[in-house]
């Protein structure tokens, strides 16, 4: 049950229905609300929020102060694509499904939110049907109907107006040919893709079978938007809430404040304790200052949830009192080196293998910050938190420091016994990636592979440099520093964007190096497989195929060093969000 | 005792290179209504003397000794604040080069008003009226309009008149003019000198004119003090200095007097060499390295400092030569040359 799959859950939809009904009554047994009975304040300890709720409480009231070192892409549920945004947004939106709140492996599973139960697939997984609960209302008191959900999905189709959000539903659903979005083609009926068959039933029609639909509809594209309040690109300035909080003020790029939404009915929502009275968010806060404020207790929550800055790490790790306030989870993110087959001799798989054999994994891990701040040594592509992940190692070396003999064998097989020269790209404004490039340079030099290092600005790394096919070919880029986090914790959610060669376009690529027809074929097989266990097995096969192709050199499965804010209650690390579960939080 | 009586005044400046004896044992006096001319080359100590009398060296690096009596009051031992109260009121100074001596950012009127109001508790309007009045008295046309002009808007002569107006604004009893005409052309020089003499008569003040040019003091001084190397070398009435000068340095000064009828560059009796260093004053007579008659002193020139001795009736000379020898030289060698033109 650890990796309870979506479909398994769907199969027990009836049970889920009962569960949520219970939840409405007083919460499920997993609810921290039940475990807290006003006992003594929790004793801080490192990793205390990983497997259980730290400092549990049911006390309502207070102001949760949160800060962000940059800014949201957009607060509009149809136009956002950041993990923290999906996490935090649940304060003011509700979607058809959601990750199960709370700590532990169950956080990876999806449970119904607006829907009464998980989706019902039919037509071999090409049609998915969701039934809405009753008693749902927007902040202005109007009822939330299936039509509002269908409209929200349809409006997110318009990528000219909403360029930031995920494209999954654009790709998966069977949109009419002449549909250009709800603004440009208002008269086109989009029911071939998504429709409200009645006030409480939303039906999705897919182009081909797709098994992970429950994970897709936990994304905010399914958060309802009332058509008469929709202002297109300006909707982000005044989002109509369907969750427990609504916007009081919203100064784009500076700050916003959430207050209670009195139209939200807790009876329809067993998952959100909604403890704080107010939530204040400050944007574009100096990242180092943000850490200092988190340490001192001036703010409660670091919204991006990617961990402390290097400057703060140096202060926190040696101090036992501060370290006791941290959690160090492995997140579904891989830092790696793309071994790009576009230029010879790396077009030869043996030369790529030579790179993988020669790399010093320990040096690479050190470059990435070591085992605590950086992450665990990665031996394959999928990180451990992904459902069904298997750890395997095709390039074992003594003490993980690289195997020169094997590397030289591979070089000989490639026809380059004396080594070769190539260029490694990295993001110059990321010190760890720079250190990684230098470690690679040293390790590869031992077998005669000479690396020229070239740094590029992170902001245009994928658009203009490493992710730009022409640039890579013209400038002989052979290796490139890279990192990827999953959208949801399944093989598809993590792998598809970085190993499917059919996603490659002239510029802005995230798949820099995996161009293997067998990999593509396995991906298609895996996405269509409705049986969870078989599907997970197939994704492990994809992982193995990529490692055989030697087009990805894994570095670390990232760990984050998160710090619990002072005076914050109900803190739990959620695996689905790979962050603290924001909707559980309260203040003392 | 005179109105101003300076006795054995010494003004020394300690520097990294040694002690600079700018003024070294100077004595003189001036009465009300009288004019003293102090003449010497630059560096002879004449300007330092005037600043010393005004008390402007107080609180600085200079070491002062001797006595300065002004109207029965000793100033060297008096407090700095007391002397400040006298400055501008009882004694005032006219500086050379009025362009740099007046503040470029304030109007002429403002600067006169400021000077007046330091010592008189009156409103600005009253002080302004007084300033206009003063400007009129020093001969500035349309004073009511020019009172609001800035120094750079005045001609050189006008500026000097304004400077005089400022110095006289509090009716000082002692007026020191330091090279009052140096920056002016010759015709204006005469006007300014006439003006100062007229005003001195009107106010009945004691006047000290400091200059390197004997010609300036020729017409206006009652007494003349010739300075060299921080010391007085000859002192006497104007007649003594012009008709019976006995010091070779004075002869040189007379020979280099610019005159209206002569090219200014022409020097009849040039003084060779340059003024002495005040740190390493030549031994013996300070003037001996430049003196054409140094060999006539029986070798005393570079060993003994000559005394300032009275030659007759208040006429003092500091020279090793005998009185007869000096008079003979004047009558036979110097006077004829000076009279040739």
């Amino acid at each position, binding site marked *: 049950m650890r990796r309870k799959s979506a479909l398994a859950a769907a199969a027990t939809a009836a049970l889920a229905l009962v569960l949520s009904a219970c939840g409405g009554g007083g919460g499920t047994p997993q609810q921290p609300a039940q475990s807290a009975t006003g006992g003594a304040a929790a004793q801080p300890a490192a990793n205390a929020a990983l497997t259980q709720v730290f400092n549990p409480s049911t006390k309502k009231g207070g102001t949760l102060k949160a*800060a962000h070192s*940059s*800014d949201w892409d*957009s607060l509009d549920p149809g*136009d956002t*694509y950041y993990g923290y945004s999906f996490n935090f947004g649940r304060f003011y939106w509700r979607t058809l499904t959601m990750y199960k709140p709370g700590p532990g492996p169950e956080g990876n599973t999806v449970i119904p939110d607006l829907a009464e139960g998980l989706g019902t697939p039919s037509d071999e997984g090409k049609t998915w049907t969701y039934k809405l609960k009753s008693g749902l209302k927007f902040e202005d008191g109007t009822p939330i109907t299936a039509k509002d959900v269908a409209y929200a999905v349809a409006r997110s189709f318009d*990528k*000219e*107006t*909403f*360029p930031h*959000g995920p*494209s999954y539903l654009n*790709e998966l659903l069977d949109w009419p040919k002449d549909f250009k979005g709800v603004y440009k083609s208002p008269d086109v009926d989009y029911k071939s893709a998504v429709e409200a068959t009645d006030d409480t039933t939303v039906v999705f029609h897919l182009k081909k079978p797709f098994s992970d639909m429950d994970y897709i509809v936990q994304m905010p594209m399914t958060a309802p938007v009332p058509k008469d309040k929709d*202002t*297109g*690109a*300006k*909707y982000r300035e005044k989002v109509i809430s369907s969750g427990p909080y609504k916007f009081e003020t919203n100064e*784009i*790029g*500076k700050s916003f404040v959430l207050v209670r939404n009195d139209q939200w009915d807790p009876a329809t929502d067993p998952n959100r304790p909604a403890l704080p009275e107010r939530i204040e968010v400050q944007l*574009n*806060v*100096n990242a*180092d*200052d943000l850490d*200092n*404020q988190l*340490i001192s207790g001036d703010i409660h929550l670091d919204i991006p949830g990617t961990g402390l800055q290097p400057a703060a790490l140096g202060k926190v790790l040696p101090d036992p009192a501060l370290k006791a306030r941290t959690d160090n989870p492995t997140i579904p993110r891989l830092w790696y080196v793309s071994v790009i087959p576009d230029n010879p001799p790396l077009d030869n798989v043996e030369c790529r293998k030579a790179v993988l054999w020669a790399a010093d994994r320990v040096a690479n891990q050190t470059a990435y910050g070591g085992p605590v701040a950086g992450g665990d040594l990665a031996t394959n592509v999928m990180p451990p938190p992904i459902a069904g992940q298997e750890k395997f190692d095709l390039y074992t070396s003594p003490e993980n420091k690289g195997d020169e003999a094997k590397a030289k064998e591979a070089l000989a097989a490639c026809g380059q016994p004396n080594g070769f020269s190539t260029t490694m790209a990295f993001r110059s404004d990321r010190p760890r990636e720079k250190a990684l490039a230098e470690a690679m340079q040293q390790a590869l030099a031992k077998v005669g592979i000479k690396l020229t290092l070239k740094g590029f600005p992170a*902001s*245009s790394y994928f*658009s*203009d440099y490493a992710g*730009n096919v*022409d*640039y890579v070919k*013209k400038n002989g880029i052979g290796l490139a520093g890279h990192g990827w986090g999953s959208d949801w914790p399944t093989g598809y959610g993590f792998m598809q964007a970085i190993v499917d060669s059919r996603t490659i*376009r002239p*510029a*802005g690529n*995230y798949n820099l190096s995996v161009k293997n027809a067998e990999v593509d074929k396995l991906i298609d097989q895996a996405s269509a497989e409705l049986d969870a266990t078989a599907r997970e097995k197939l994704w492990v096969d994809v992982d193995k195929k990529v490692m055989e192709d030697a087009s990805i050199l894994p570095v670390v499965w990232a760990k984050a060093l998160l710090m619990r804010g002072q005076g914050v209650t109900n803190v739990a690390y959620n695996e689905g969000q790979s962050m603290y579960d924001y909707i559980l939080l309260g203040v003392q | 005792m005179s109105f101003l009586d300076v006795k054995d005044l010494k003004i020394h400046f300690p520097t990294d290179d040694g002690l600079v004896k700018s003024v070294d044992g100077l004595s003189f006096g001036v009465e009300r209504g009288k004019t003293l001319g102090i003449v010497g080359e630059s560096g002879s100590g004449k300007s330092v003397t005037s600043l010393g009398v*005004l008390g*402007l060296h107080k609180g600085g690096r200079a070491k002062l000794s001797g006595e300065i009596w002004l109207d029965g009051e000793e100033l060297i031992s008096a407090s700095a604040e007391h002397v400040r109260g*006298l*400055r501008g*009121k009882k004694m*005032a100074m006219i*500086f050379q080069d009025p362009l740099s*001596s*007046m*503040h*470029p*950012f304030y109007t002429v009127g403002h600067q006169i008003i*400021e*000077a007046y109001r*330091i010592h008189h508790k009156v409103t600005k309007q009253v002080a302004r009226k007084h300033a206009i009045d003063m400007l009129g008295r020093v001969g500035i046309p349309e004073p009511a309009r020019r009172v609001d002009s*800035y120094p*750079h808007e005045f001609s050189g002569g006008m500026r000097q008149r304004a400077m005089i107006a*400022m110095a006289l604004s509090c009716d000082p009893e002692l007026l020191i003019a330091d090279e009052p005409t140096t920056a002016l052309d010759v015709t204006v020089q005469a006007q300014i000198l006439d003006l100062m003499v007229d005003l001195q008569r009107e106010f009945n003040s004691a006047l000290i004119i400091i200059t390197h040019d004997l010609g300036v003091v020729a017409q206006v001084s009652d007494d003349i003090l010739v300075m060299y190397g921080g010391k007085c070398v000859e002192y006497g009435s104007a007649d003594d200095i012009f008709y019976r000068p006995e010091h070779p340095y004075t002869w040189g000064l007379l020979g280099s007097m610019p005159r209206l009828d002569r090219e200014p560059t022409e020097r009849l009796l040039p003084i060779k060499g340059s003024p002495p260093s005040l740190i390493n004053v030549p031994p013996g007579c300070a003037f001996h390295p430049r003196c054409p008659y140094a060999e006539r002193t029986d070798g005393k020139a570079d060993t003994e400092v000559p005394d300032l001795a009275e030659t007759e009736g208040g006429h003092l000379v500091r020279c090793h030569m005998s009185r007869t020898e000096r008079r003979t030289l004047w009558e036979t060698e110097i006077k004829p040359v000076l009279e040739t033109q």
Partner: protein
Amino acid sequence: MLTYIIRRLIGAFAMLIVISMVTFGIFFVVPQWAGATPEAMASRYVGRAATPETVALIAERLGFNDPVAVQYGRFMKGVFAGAEYDYGAGVEQCPAPCFGYSFISGQPVWPELVNRMPVTFSLAIGAAVIWVLAGVSVGVLSALRRGSFFDRLSMGTALAGVSLPIFFTGMISLVVFSYGLGWTAPGGAYVPFTQNPALWAYDLLLPWITLAFLFAAGYARLTRAGMLETMGEDYIRTARAKGLREREVVVKHGLRAALTPILTLFGIDFGLLIGGAVLTETTYTLPGLGQYAILAIRNQDLPPVMGFVLVAATFVVIASLIVDMLYAVVDPRVRLS
């Protein structure tokens, strides 16, 4: 005088046009040298893993497919004549001066600039008051007590002041005074003056001092040098000869003359600063123009960058014009022509 101002304004206007062209050029031409296509440019402004269709749509929407000159013309037309903005559900009029809409947040640039000006003004004015008062008085005292312990101590501190970067002094001050001692407001606090003047000053105190420290150092050194020079002038001797008290000699005659070069420097510094105290605003998370600019540059968000550059350059130009005119007031010898 009037013709002088008009001529200066025309010159300033021409300069602003040139600056806008250069900024625009850097933004487009440099990536093009590196081989960036319109799509590559557009892919900066889409979400991650965006499809090629999305990128193409955005490239078209942002006008990247047109020649740079056409894009520049369109931008400048917006500045002078206004523009229209299609937000999907409707079209919004953006009246002149319209500096366009952020590529990232979709917010109009001009109102945001106006909105942020009070923050930067508050920061600049408060800091300027502190640094001018502190810098000038320390400079004067150092000059009057040249070679003393005070002189050496203050000039040593001044050297540290000009050398230490704000993000260092700022961060240290925050940790010590805000989080450690709790005397000052934490970073990111700002309340408009009109709302609560006391809180406004409290929140800005630390940024003011940090920023002022940097500038005060330079002003102290400059004042000291200027005072040493003017106190040796003839007119100072005249002022003393008039019987003026020493304090008035120093302030009214000495300092008055020494202040003119400081005025020039102040005009330029202040002009630059109201164009955005970039480091201070970033360090203290103050939502001013400088922070706006740094975010825009980090995100390669052209319209805010353009808007900021033009506004900041305008401030500098205006400040230097005011300084030149003040110069004529302060120093009557200067005549504008």
